[in-house]
């Protein structure tokens, strides 16, 4: 890549940060050049973020319909999946999956609620709602 070809397309996902990239200068030597971002990176990052947001949205609808517990919604909102939430809390997957049932979640002891809230970076009260 030539120095003048270093992308400066203003990748919104970088939020104003700049990246250092090696590029070939006029003298044929490689050097570090700051880049404002590349459209391709923005596309793939947005794609991943949108996929996670979509999952959280769908989970939210299911919570409102009474089909799952707020825990599943918060899991996706924290950009986690079942495997990661299970590892972060130190609970077995089947237990986490069981806590997705609204009835089980409703009578979850405070100690477990705390554990989930800690893992997801939330307060215990926020864990019980979906806003």
């Amino acid at each position: 890549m030539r120095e003048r070809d270093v992308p400066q397309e203003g990748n919104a996902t970088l939020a104003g940060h700049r990246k250092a990239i090696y590029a070939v200068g006029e003298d044929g030597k490689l050097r570090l050049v700051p880049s404002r971002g590349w459209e391709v990176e923005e596309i793939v990052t947005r794609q991943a973020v949108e996929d996670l947001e979509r999952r959280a949205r769908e989970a939210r609808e299911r919570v409102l319909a009474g089909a799952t517990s707020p825990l599943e919604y918060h899991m996706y909102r924290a950009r986690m999946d079942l495997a990661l939430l299970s590892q972060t809390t130190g609970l077995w997957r089947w237990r986490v999956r069981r806590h997705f049932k609204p009835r089980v979640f409703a009578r979850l002891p405070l100690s477990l609620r705390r554990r989930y809230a800690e893992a997801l970076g939330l307060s215990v009260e926020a864990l019980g709602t979906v806003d």
Partner: protein
Amino acid sequence: MAFGLSSALSFAYLPCIRINGMPLVAFRMPPRAIVKGLQRGLGFGMRFETFRSPASGTARLDALLDAGKLVGLQAGIYWLPYFPPDLRFHFNAHNLLVYGRDGDDYLVSDPVAEASTRCARKDMEKARFAKGVLAPKGLLYYVTTPPSEPDWAGLGRRALVRTTNIMLRTPLPFVGVRGIEMLARRVERLPLDGGGERARLYIGHLVRMQEEIGTGGAGFRFMYASFLQELAGKTGHAALDGLAIRLVEIGDRWQEFAVAAARMIRRRDALAPPALAERLRALAGDERLFFQELRRVERAWAC
């Protein structure tokens, strides 16, 4: 330079390690291996420590900083508050430097941010003890004995041999040039059912592993090219210069692959995994020729 001397350039396709349900594709060695490779090359002492409990990890970090050490850390991106929100995924193999402490804030030099930043102690503890794939377990490292003036030619040659070995002669089918070919076969067979949404996500994930995380696949090729140039300058072995330019061209072609993939994700082009597989195969071929040539140049250097 550090990147080249530690023989950090590689390729690995690891379908058994899953990140958000997608396979791990690496374009370089893990950070710890890079630092260790460098340590071996430059003959300086480096100490690595991991911790069982977050409290002891934080206490140790504070003690080292108070002793005036520069400390490297591994941390999960998601919990670092200074990261742009869209980039905060659960990705644990991120490395950064802490060079001081101001009350309850750490002074951080992170390759992602241009200027140095601050990070509160509580957030840093959470990031350092993030769980999941490649969990950092509070890993920190610091220099114990400073490096001596190196013998560039000897070190450089050894590093070249190591890198060509990784890329061409690893007996595992998912590492090096054969790893790229294996990935190409996988991409070719991507199922297109359900409107291809899953295939799009897979391709997007590939490009993200390539370009977004760290400075990216093409970026690492450029970085290695810069190492070859510097080595040529330091040792006067001019044949390396020509190779650097060839590697830059290969890096450009990795970027073209990323562009083609992004166009398919955005539906500007029809989704066609076989076309992408073809590009990957061409890249594998290019890299094979390149590293064979690098091997020859290294041998010729001996006489």
